[in-house]
C-alpha cells in the first residue's frame, strides 16, 4: 500500500506583466526594441511572432499599459467600424492571429483604417505574417510587407531568468542551485518552463518542502504530476 499523499491546491498568482518584468535577451531584443520604439514605428502596423510563451502577450500588455492600447478579442471587433476603433490615433492589439481562421476582410479594412487614422496596430502570431494562410491577395501582400520581429527560443541565460520570474510570480521559495540544475537539463522551450515551474511548485506545496535540487529532479522526471 502506498502511503496516502496530500494533494495541493493549485495556487496561482497573477503574472507580473510590467515592462520591467519583461526579460530582455538576444533572442527577443529586436522585438522589445520594436515595442519600445512606439510611436516611432517603421509603419503604422507591426507584427511580433514567436512560439507560445515567448513573451508576445506580455509585450502586448506592456504596449497596452504604456499607450492605453485596446486589446481586441476575437469576435468582438469584426463588425465594428474600423475607423471608429482607432479614434484619434489610438493603438490596437490583435493577438494570436494564426491560431484560428483569419477574419480576412475585416483585418484588411483594419489595416487600411490604421494608416488613415494615423493609429497603431500590433499583430501577434506564432509564425511570421508572410506565412499566414490568407486567400485575399491584397491582404497577403500587406501582411508580407509588415515590419515583423521574431521572439526566438530562449538561450540558457534567458531560460534561467524566465524560471526565476515564474517562480517569483508564484512566490515560490527556490534553493540556490535549482535554477542552474534545471537550465542544464530541461527542454528548451517556454512552454516547458511553465509546466516545470507548475509541477515543482505543486510538489513542494503538496509535501510542504522547499524547492530543492532533489525535488526539482523529481519535477523534471515526472512528466505528468498525477503519475508521481
Amino acid at each position: 500500500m502506498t502511503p496516502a499523499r496530500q494533494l495541493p491546491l493549485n495556487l496561482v498568482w497573477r503574472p507580473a506583466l510590467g515592462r520591467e518584468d519583461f526579460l530582455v535577451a538576444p533572442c527577443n531584443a529586436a522585438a522589445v526594441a520594436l515595442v519600445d520604439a512606439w510611436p516611432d514605428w517603421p509603419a503604422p502596423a507591426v507584427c511580433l511572432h514567436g512560439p507560445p510563451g515567448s513573451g508576445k502577450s506580455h509585450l502586448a500588455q506592456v504596449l497596452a499599459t504604456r499607450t492605453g492600447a485596446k486589446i481586441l478579442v476575437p469576435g468582438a471587433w469584426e463588425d465594428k467600424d474600423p475607423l471608429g476603433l482607432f479614434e484619434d490615433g489610438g493603438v490596437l492589439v490583435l493577438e494570436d492571429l494564426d491560431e484560428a481562421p483569419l477574419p480576412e476582410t475585416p483585418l484588411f479594412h483594419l489595416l487600411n483604417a490604421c494608416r488613415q487614422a494615423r493609429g497603431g496596430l500590433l499583430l501577434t502570431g506564432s509564425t511570421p505574417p508572410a506565412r499566414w494562410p490568407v486567400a485575399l491577395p491584397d491582404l497577403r501582400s500587406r501582411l508580407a510587407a509588415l515590419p515583423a520581429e521574431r521572439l526566438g527560443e530562449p538561450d540558457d541565460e534567458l531560460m534561467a531568468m524566465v524560471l526565476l520570474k515564474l517562480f517569483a510570480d508564484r512566490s515560490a521559495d527556490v534553493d540556490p542551485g535549482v535554477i542552474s540544475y534545471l537550465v542544464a537539463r530541461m527542454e528548451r522551450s517556454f512552454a516547458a518552463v511553465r509546466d516545470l515551474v507548475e509541477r515543482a511548485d505543486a510538489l513542494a506545496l503538496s509535501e510542504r518542502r522547499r524547492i530543492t535540487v532533489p525535488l526539482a529532479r523529481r519535477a523534471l522526471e515526472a512528466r505528468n504530476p498525477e503519475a508521481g
Partner: protein
Amino acid sequence: MKLTIERTALLKSLGHVQSVVERRNTIPILSNVRMEATDRGVSLNATDMDLEIVESVAAQTAVPGSTTAPAHTLYDIVRKLPDGSQVELAYDGGDGQLVLKAGRSRFSLACLPVEDFPAMSAGAFSHTFSLAAAELRGLIDRTRFAISTEETRYYLNGIFLHAADSDGLPVLRAVATDGHRLARAEVPLPEGAKDMPGIIIPRKTVAELRKLIDETGMDVTLALSDQKARFDFDDTRLTSKLIDGTFPDYERVIPTENDKVLEVDCKLFAQAVDRVSAISTEKSRAIKVTVDSGSLTLSASSPDAGSAVEEIEASYDSTAMDIGFNSRYLLDILGQVEGDAVRLTLADAASPTVVRDVADASAVYVLMPMRV
C-alpha cells in the same frame, strides 16, 4: 513623571501590552514597556517590532513625563499587589529608576531612555472604517485555522483581508490558505472600506487581535494603508506591520462546477470522523470517505493499528465515489460550522472539494483531497 493609578486598571492594561513582549530579548529595551503620563492619564506601549499595543488608562498625573521599564517584572509586581491598592509610579530621571509604591511596598526598577524605544510609525492611512467586534471575530475564527505555518511561504502566513464583490454585493473578505485547504469568510463591506488595499495580516497579529476582541464587545475601528494596519478598541490600539507579499489569486482554486452534492448532519459527521481517525496513521491522518445514494461511509486503516468503518446517514443522489481527506483538516472545517448541516460539493477524488455551512452562505471552505 509621577502618577497614581488604581491597581486593577493598571494590571488589566499591563496584561494586554506585556503579552506582546518576548520573554527573551537580546535587545534590552525590547523587554520594556514605554509609559507616558499626561493630564488625560497614562499610556502604556509595548512592541516586538512587528506589532505594537498601546493602552490608555485613567490615572491621576501629578507630573507629566515618560520612561520605559521592564514589562514582565512590572506586570509580576502589580499582579502580586493586593486588590484595591493605589499604585504610585514615579520617575525623576536622576538615577534612572522607576519607583513604584503601593501601601507599604516600594520597588525600584531600572529604566531605559524613552528615546531608545522603537518607533513604529503608522504613517498615513488611506482607509478607515468600523466593524462590530463580532464581525471581526467571525472573519478571523472562520479563516485562521487555514493560515500556513510554513515560514518559507511567508505570504501565506496570515489572513488576506480585502474588499471584494460577492454576487454583486460589496463585501469585506478574509482568506487564508496553507496550500492544502482554503477558508474564505465575508461580511458586508463597511462604509469607508471601498477600494481599500488588500492586506495580509500576520499570524501573530491575528492571535493578539483575537485576544483583544474577547475582552471587548464594542466596535473596532480599522485604519489601513499598504504598509500598516491599526485596530482601535475602546482603550487599546494595536498597530501592526503587514506581510509584504502578494496573496495568490485564490478565486481560481474555488471550484464552481462541482456537481456532486452531499449534505450531512455536521455534528454526527464530525464525531464519526474523529472516531475513525483514531485508526489513521499519525503522520498522514488520512481517512476515506465513500459516498453512495443516501449514505456516507468513513473508513481508515493502518498497517499497525488495524481498521475502522463507520456509516452515517446523508443526503446524496449522485454517482458513488471514494475520496480521501486529512481528518484533521476536515475536523478543522467542521468545527467552524455553526448550523446543523454541512454541504460538501465534490467533483472527483483528485479535485478540490467545497464545504459550506448550509445555514451560512458567508463562509466557504475548500479542501484538497488525499490520494489514499
